[in-house]
């Protein structure tokens, strides 16, 4: 396990696609036990920012410092649709080099996916696929959670369970960044930022 405290620092990150400057100068930090929300309109560059922090995309300039293992949950379920839930877990268990499935097993119960474990993902509902998407991001108990629209497609019960998991992670001194185009409950976040015109600014009303 990591002994150094988890943290995330993003400094002066910029990224363009052709002539379109999606991120101009993004700077923020998140400390251990902090839950940061990043809101913004569709196409504001939220997903690009999270992909850069996760390591999928290089920034044009700027610096990312991450302390701790990352758990990245992409916006759309990036899973094998032609395999069962169990087989997807096996792929990612090998990727994370985990000796056991204990945490994944606990999350299967918690998010009520256990009875689907032998079902092909392509046959699952959108909400259940999203649950699997989240489990695959968290099954190695990461210290830095990067979640892109993590509760889209969830029913109310699952939405509440998601926040239970997020709150537990916060109490366990993890760093959590959630991006969403819709932020329903502002009080759940320690810090709420808005991505607008390529820069981050404090969310109005906080």
């Amino acid at each position, binding site marked *: 396990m990591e002994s150094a405290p988890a943290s995330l620092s993003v400094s002066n990150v910029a990224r363009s696609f052709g002539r379109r400057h999606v991120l101009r100068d993004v700077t923020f930090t998140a400390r251990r036990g902090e839950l940061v929300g990043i809101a913004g309109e569709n196409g504001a560059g939220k997903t690009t920012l999270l992909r850069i922090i996760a390591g999928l995309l290089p920034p044009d300039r700027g610096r990312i410092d991450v302390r701790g293992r990352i758990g990245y949950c992409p916006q759309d379920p*990036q899973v*094998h649709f032609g395999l069962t839930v169990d087989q997807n877990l*096996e792929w990612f268990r090998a990727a994370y080099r985990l000796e056991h499935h204990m945490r994944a097993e606990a999350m299967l119960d918690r998010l009520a996916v256990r009875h689907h474990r032998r079902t092909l993902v392509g046959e699952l509902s959108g909400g259940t696929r999203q649950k699997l998407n989240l489990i695959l991001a968290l099954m190695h108990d990461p210290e830095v959670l990067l979640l892109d629209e993590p509760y889209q497609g969830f029913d109310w019960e699952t939405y509440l369970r998601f926040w239970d998991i997020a709150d537990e992670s916060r109490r366990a001194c993890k760093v959590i960044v959630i991006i969403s185009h819709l932020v329903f409950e502002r009080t759940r976040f320690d810090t709420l930022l808005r991505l607008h015109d390529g820069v981050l600014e404090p969310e109005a009303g906080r």
Partner: protein
Amino acid sequence: MIRQIWIALRLTLTEQAHNRFAMLLLAVYLPAWYGVIYGLTDNASIGFQLRAFHVFVATSQHRLGLLTGMLNATTLIMGFVALSAVRRSALVDQRLVLCGYSRSALILGRLLAFAGASAVLSLYAVAVLAAFTPPQHPGVVVAGTFGAVLTYAAIGVLVGVIARGDLEGFFVIIMLSLVDTFIQSPIGNPAANRAVVEYFPSYLPMQIVVGGAIADHVAWWQFWGSLAWAVMLGILGVLGFWLRTRIARAHA
């Protein structure tokens, strides 16, 4: 590393087995296609040139039509399976690499799975063919079919990483397989004996398959030559696959 290769190989094969459309093609399309060809051709004699031996062998249109049809159907099915697998796993492959999966193990496992699927498909296609026209040397026919099928697995991977959309990819595979196998057969192409056919991927497999099915002529260098096509295209496919799964920074 070995464990990751094994998991990639096993789960890629499992996913292919779950591809219901591909299974339907195997179970229904292949035998139905053989039946259609058998019905459309007759027992009239036709000559086929085995260019490595500079001889013409005489056979029936039934047999030659079935052999051509087998190469056409198997290359089409494998091209589709590889293309479909590569496109469906595009984003999740990158996610796996980001989460720590060895890129080399992932690619090697997937390639081995395609090779395994190609071998199974070749065996199956020749076994079904035997119900219509038993080949004289089934092992040789399987080997020739394997060369063609493996080449189209590589084409499927290559097209899968460069095509912009699924439809474009499928169109390329269908047209390639159709043109490539069609021009090898003197039934459909009176100019099949011209040297230009040698530059197509199905040329060597067709020579092996016909030599093994209706004669006793086998030039094994042709088998290795057919694999060379697969390796050449496979290297390009792997290069595309490698670029597609690149990430900016791996997780610690």
